[in-house]
Every structure is written in structure tokens, then in C-alpha cells.
């Protein structure tokens, strides 16, 4: 398609240390080269990061899930992609490496805008670490796409831990967006008006730009619907 014409293409497929899914020091470590299909089928991921497990089937189709990588999806940073939102919702940490050494960047600091990340030009993602889901934790993953497998018009990755709730929206901004005002409203308000208050507050968290599928107002509306559904699911 000649959309980009890189002068240099480095194939990292055979760098063994970039692969694998394991439990290490209590955290879930997913190698950058782990394929979406591998992540989706992993019992370890299902147990330690159920949100990711729930998200994988929403990524495109099996053929793409067989090739697309966890690290590639994060590094690509499509604002409508599923995994970046999960990474933020789960307080994941990305391991980055370059000839200068290794560093760790929290997912919430990693995404900087449309296709823009904290990666330096000479840096790669080697792995991602996800704190394990605690006992009593719950997660809900919702997205609205015109066709199964499409990027979301609006999506929500929600993770609840005892005393803590993360609502991270995707497809409604230039990066995954944590809905702090809505979350606060959900936690603060009395049960009866809680959801409506959170839906109202969402306007302070999100100002979605329109795209080919929907204008900004429609996206905000859809995000509110998802918020209501996630709240119901988490309360159930």
C-alpha cells in the first residue's frame, strides 16, 4: 500500500528471549513476541489477567491473531486497539530495551497519542509485566464494533480490585483513557444514582474525536452505554 516506506526492516521474530508467557516473581510476564492466539489460549493469562483473556477474541480474526504480537500491538499504539487499554487498566509495566540498557515504563505513561509511545527510536519492547489479579478481583471487557473483529467504535476495559476500580476506554481518544471522574462518581455516589452520575461525569473524562464510524457525541453516548453495562456486570 506504500503507506510507509521504511529504509530498514529488522526481523525480531527469531529473538528467542522476546517470546514466552510465564509467571515470574508473582507477576505475569508476557514476552513481546507472544502471539495474540497464544495469549488467548494461555491458562496462565486466563488466571492471572482475565481481562486480557476476555479481550483477545475481540482482536480481528484468527489469522491475524496467529501473527499479531502482544509487543507489536502495544508499540503500534492504535488508540482503538484492545491490548493497550487492558495494559493501562491492569497497571501493567512495559520492559523496554536498547543498547543503552533496559528500563521499565508504566503502561499509563507509555501511550502518548495516536501511534505515539514513550519508545525511543532505538528501543524495543521486550516484555510486559502484569500484576496478578487478586482474589475477589473482577474484570469486564466490552466493545462496540460494526463487524466482529473490527477496531472498536468505543470500548471499555474495566478491572476491579478490592478498593480499586479502573475504567479504561479505547477508541474514543488518541490513546487509552482512564475515566477518573466517572470512576470517582461510581465509588462516591449512593447506589441509586451512581450509574447515571458516572455516565454524566464521563463527559469530563472523554472528548472523543469523530471518525468514519461515528461523530464525537455518538461515541460519548456509546461510551456511556458501555459504562452502564460494565457497572451492571461488575455489580452482578
Amino acid at each position, binding site marked *: 500500500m*506504500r503507506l510507509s516506506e521504511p529504509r530498514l526492516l529488522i526481523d525480531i521474530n527469531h529473538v528467542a528471549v522476546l517470546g514466552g508467557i510465564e509467571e515470574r516473581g508473582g507477576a505475569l510476564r508476557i514476552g513481546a513476541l507472544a502471539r495474540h492466539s497464544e495469549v488467548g489460549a494461555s491458562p496462565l493469562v486466563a488466571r492471572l489477567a482475565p481481562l486480557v483473556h476476555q479481550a483477545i477474541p475481540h482482536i480481528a480474526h484468527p489469522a491475524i491473531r496467529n501473527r499479531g504480537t502482544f509487543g507489536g500491538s502495544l508499540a503500534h499504539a492504535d488508540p482503538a486497539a484492545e491490548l493497550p487499554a487492558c495494559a493501562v487498566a491492569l497497571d501493567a509495566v512495559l520492559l523496554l530495551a536498547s543498547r543503552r540498557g533496559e528500563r521499565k515504563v508504566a503502561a499509563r505513561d507509555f501511550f502518548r497519542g495516536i501511534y505515539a509511545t514513550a519508545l525511543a527510536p532505538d528501543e524495543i519492547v521486550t516484555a510486559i509485566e502484569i500484576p496478578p489479579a487478586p482474589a475477589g478481583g473482577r474484570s469486564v471487557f466490552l466493545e462496540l464494533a460494526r*463487524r466482529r473483529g473490527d477496531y472498536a467504535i468505543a470500548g471499555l476495559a474495566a478491572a476491579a480490585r478490592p478498593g480499586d476500580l479502573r475504567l479504561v476506554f479505547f477508541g474514543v481518544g488518541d490513546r487509552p483513557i482512564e475515566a477518573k471522574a466517572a470512576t470517582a462518581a461510581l465509588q462516591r455516589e449512593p447506589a441509586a444514582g451512581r450509574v447515571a452520575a458516572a455516565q454524566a461525569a464521563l463527559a469530563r473524562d472523554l472528548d472523543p474525536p469523530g471518525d*468514519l464510524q461515528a461523530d464525537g457525541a455518538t461515541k460519548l453516548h456509546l461510551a456511556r452505554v458501555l459504562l452502564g453495562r460494565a457497572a451492571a456486570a461488575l455489580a452482578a
Partner: protein
Amino acid sequence: MSERPLSFLDRPNSYIGRSVPRPNARRLLQGRGTYVDDIRLPRLLHAVFLRSPYAHARIAGIDTAAASRLPGVVRVVTAADLAGLYTPWVGTLSHLKGLKSAPQHPLAQGRACWQGEPVAAVVAESRAQAEDAAAQIAVEWQELAPLASAEAALASGAPAIHAALGDNLAFARAVDTGAVDDAFARADAVVAETFTFARHTGVCLEPRSILAEFDRSERRLTLHCSSQVPHMMKEIAARHFALAETDVRVICRDVGGSYGIKIHVYPDEMATIALALLLGRPVKFVADRLESFVSDIHAREHRVAARMAVSKSGEILAIDIDDLTGIGPYSTYPRTSAIEGNQVVNLTGSWYRCANYRARLRVAFQTKPPMSQYRAVGHPIACAVTEGLVDLAARAIAMDPAELRRRNLIADDAYPCTSPAGLIFEKLSHQRALARMLELMDYAGLRREQAALRARGIHRGIGLASFVEITNPGPAFYGVGGAPISAQDGCTLRLEPGGAVTCAISITEQGQGTETMVAQIVASVLGVALERVRVVTGDTERTPYGGGTWASRGAGIGGEAALQAAKALRANILDLAGAMLQAAPADLDIAQGWIVDAVSGARRIGLDEVGRAGYFRGDTLPPGIQPELVATRHHQPRDYPFAFTNGVQASWLELDIETGFVRLLKHWVVEDCGRVVSPLLVDEQIRGGVVQGLGGALFEECLYDGEGQLLNGTLADYLVPMAGEMPDIEVAHVMTPLAGTELGAKGAGEAGTAGAPAAVMNAINDALAPFGATVAEQPFTPARILRALGRT
């Protein structure tokens, strides 16, 4: 012995009416198909086009010097370089009175009129080299004001896109029959709606492709192309490149889908032919997916303001429509771009008894890609307008929509009859089809289920849509207007010495199963096993002359030619066998590859023995016997201009009123295409057609901005319908064989697309009814549905 001898169609071993495996499926599934891109010839070059990035712009200059110097580049050409190699073409037909268009050329002549118009071409040793070079062509553009919408193009004072034509009105037509104003005046209810249909396009698995090879020594041109109309392409090439008609050969090997995209003359394909002539080397052009979006014909883009008058008792009294459609800057050659609007005028309301009908059509030039015939030309528009109005009318008089249809559909015993716009219907079965549908879908049960679910906040809708489909067009469709488009087709059958049969036929295979259908007919009539019939299509030097496959004409016309050719060959074979066996040919028959006794069925000699005697052992035959083991027959529809089919579709869907998302739960089609040769192939045609119709109703839309720029020209952004969103599609048939042919087959290729959008629209509006909301703008996106619900 039965009293009436069994016909070829219903003999015990007949393949007619049976689903059989497709002989070509194994080859295609094993990846052994040969598409144009698979053809590699010695000294082959590759063409790539530089296309206009603007909807409307003057070309002040083109600098090709840098591009020409790049490695592998053989030639870079602009319009001037091709001058004199061809004659331009104009997309008009004399029977479409008043239709005008401007001459078209392979490359833009100093001005581009749509984003995607080819401006320059690079020919190189490889496609990649040609692409690299195309990026280096420097064009000095001077932007002109675009006229993207049909409304803007027809606004008073709008500049004419082609000054010589005076204005942007390409074609207009008006029909006014009966007493329309009176009927509206005395109606108990009048309903009105403006229906909008987005521009969309056909997305073929194999993009448009052509490989042109010119042998200078003999001035012979061979075109390998992905086309539905090999003989038309031959005529066009001969005509516009001044070649003898016998010096052009068109070969279409496997064709990966077409849907009407591949029946038109495209500038880039004509440029590829010109380049082959210019360079004396074979040149291949395969459109990539991105350029397909801006160079394949588009379709639809209609806005129809419509009204219907109805009485309290449920009589449809009058229909009045006003259709405005935009066709891009040129009327497409040679079929024109006026046909779709013309069909809307012809078809709207034509399945109801209502005699008061008024229609106005305006077809406008605009600066977008040319629009022309795509599967079910005009039908989905006429059907959605008619059936949308019927549902609105039913609501206005509080009558069940199925009942309103029952009261107004033309009675099954009222044929032949003529519609207000002049269509002649030979014999249709609307009432039987509707009755069958209501039973098939359990209409009453669904209504109860709907009511029960509604009480629980689940909003489901039921939509019905009756329709007619134009199939088997005669010469009145294009031929009378001067187009080199044949309405007849031919079939040649040859008995091989070993008893197999080679069948060469002028209709074409583009994935729909033509070859299987033809083989079934030939094998049935000749009494041979299906595997013994080899069907050859898609080669102007190896098949009889004919129209090809479009307008749902393959089975009805080509199938009849095959049937008649098989009868003729059968008679020849029996003549020879009679001479060999000293029996009267009438006392013999052919069954399972054997000459048998007609009465007892006892085997006499094998077909291989007949073939051998005919070809190798003439010495054993009685004097005076000249075996004729080849037979050719042609067929063309004469009694009626078209063979109409009819049917009804129904949709059952669930609407998420919070998100505006539609989930298709089930779709039914009852249709009458006359004799069904292969239930498998017909049902799959119907289903595939429905899916394309659902695409138009829910997903597909070429989104243009006000500057005439396509916003979603990739398969990531242009949403084709995918399996995940498709409902189960149940198909049932009513069979009213076509008179005037022995086979009795009408077409089935477009019925699905014709009725599906209307059924879905009505179902969505049925689900929306409790909210007093309606939608009439296709595709029915979540955003549009939410807007109708007042939620955004």
C-alpha cells in the same frame, strides 16, 4: 410405459433439479485456478497508473523525466503519447433518449474529473519498479471547484463539468400514468418519505485485471482479462483500436467474482491495450485494492422523494417518486450510466395493482468515479422505495403490512399484464410466494414472539419485501441502442471418440457455477455422466458468439442454448447409431453413456463405439452416412423483452436501542426463478445476493467529503459484509417455468440483492415503531439509528 414420454428434464437420471458437486471446485480450492495475475508471458511488462489525487483539477504540466530514468522503466506515457492509437468512446445509447456524455480517453486529457482518474502510466519490467517510478512523476495541478453532490451539480448556475454538454443533467425521464393527482386527492392516507441510498461499490476477490499482447507481425491482439463479457470486449477492442474483428481474441480464464464490475470499458484497461500496441510487448495491469476503490464503477447514490396514497380499506391508490442520482463525470461505456435510474423508474411499484404512477428521474454528472451497473441494477432502490412506502401506508391505516401486501400484489391469475411504466410480465407468482413466505417464517408466531419480547424491553423487528427481478434481457436492453452487446448465446457440443462430450459455450463462469449448470443440462439431455462433460467458457476463439454472464441471463439464455444443442447432438448421435444398428433412430435412446432400446432400456452399444465408428471407422458405416458429431445451437429471448422473476424476502432482527446496533437474526427468501437446474447453485446465488444486499443496507458506503475525496478507500474502512454478521438465510422456491423455452429457467443472480435492503429497512423500522422513529438512509449505521431515536 407412461402415457406422456418423460422429457429430458425429468428422466430418472436427469441432473436437472439436483445439486451436484461443482467440477471446477477442486481445482479452485487447490489453488490451481488461473487468474490474469497468474499468467506470465515472455517479455511481459507491468503497467501502473498515476491517478488524480483531486476530484477536479487542470493538469498544467506533467514531468516524467525523473520517472523515466529509474531502473526497469520501459516507458512513461501521458495522454499525448497515446493519441492516434485509439478512438475515444462515448457512453450513450440511442434508445435512452436525451442521454448525453462526453468522449472518454485512456488517460486524462489536460483535466481530471474524479479522484482516481488515470493521468499517466508507467510500464516497467516489474510492478514494483513501475510503482516506484509512478511516485516520481511530477504533475502540476491546478485545482478546480469540485461538484461532488448531484444536487450541487444540478443547482442553477453550476458550471458544466463538460462545457460542450451545456449542463450537468445527463439524462432525465418522466412517467405519468393514470390519474395520480386525483388518487392522492381522494386517498384516506398519504405517506411520504425521502429514501437515500449511499454510493457503494462491488468488491471482487480478484480485482480488475488485463493482460494485452499484440503480435505486430500479424497485427493480432490477445487480451487475457477478468471479464464477464469476452465477446463485447473483442468488439470494443477491434472497434477502438482499428483492428480486424478476427484479429482480436479475448480469453477469460478463471474470473474471481464480478457482480457487474467487469462488464464495462475502463480507461486504465484501454490504456493497457494501447501500451501493448505501442510497445509490441505484452503488458499486464492488475488493479490493486486501493485503486479499485477509486476506479471500479460505483453504484447506487440515489435520493428518492416518494409518496404513496392509500385507502382505508387498504387499496394502494397511487405512487409518486422523484429520483435524483449522481453518476460521476461520464456515462460509462457501452452500457451507460442511465440504466440504474431508468430501472428505478421502470420497477418501482410494478408488483402491485396500482395503476396511478408518476415518476421523475434526473441523472447528474458530478466529480466522483463513474457509476454504473452493479448487481441488481436499480432493483434495491425501487424495492426499498416501494416496500418502505407500503409499510408506512400499513401503519397509517393500521393494517398489518403482510395483509396490505396481500391485498395489492398482482393476482397470480392476472397474467400476462403490463405495468404502468410499460414492463410486460409473462407469469409471476407474487401471491403464492407471499403465502409461502408467511408460512415458512411463521409470521403469526413471530409477531407473537415480538410482542412478548417487546414487553421485556427487547426490540425485534419483522420486515417484508416483495420484489421483481429483471432477467434474461433481450436485444431491447442494449442491442437496439447500438451497443455491441449480444442478447443471444450459443453452445457447441462435440462427441469425443471415447464417448465424452466437449461443450463450448458463450456464457461465462466467474465463480457462480455456470459450468456446472451447463454440464448438468448437457449431461441430462445426452444421457451421459456429468463427469463426461467438459465445459469450455471464456474464449472468443473457442466458443460460439454470445453475450456472456450478466443480468441474470446465464441459465435462462445460455442454459437453453445448451439444451437445444444437446438435443441436436443427441439426434445426430442416434442417427449414426441407427445406421450402425440398422434400427430406426426413434427406437433408440441414450442413457448412462449407452445407446439403449428406447422401450426396454436394453443396452445396445456404448457411446464410445459410436464415437469410434464416427471418427475412425467410417469404412464400417453404410454408404451415404456422414456422421455429424458436433452440434451448435443458439438462443435468444424474443417473446418478451425480459423474463421477470418475483419473490419476497423477510428479515427478523434485533435492535439495541441504546447503541443503535442491529443484529440480524434470520432472513428468508421465497423466489420464483422458473425451473431450478441446480438447487445448490440457485440457493447460493440467492444467499450471496442477499449478503450483498445486506452490505448495502447496513455496511457499505463510499464516504466522500465535500471536495469529492474518498475517505474510506481501504478494506479496513470500507465495510464489506462478513460472515460473522450474516444471519441464516433460508431459501424456498415457487416454480413457474418460463414460457417460450424448453428449459423454463429464469435468472436468479440478483434477486437476493434486490430485496434484502428493503426487508432489513422495514424490519428496523418495525423495531423502531414503538419509539415513533424511522430510518430511510442507507446504510443504516448505528449513528443514524441513534439519531432517529433522538439519543444523540
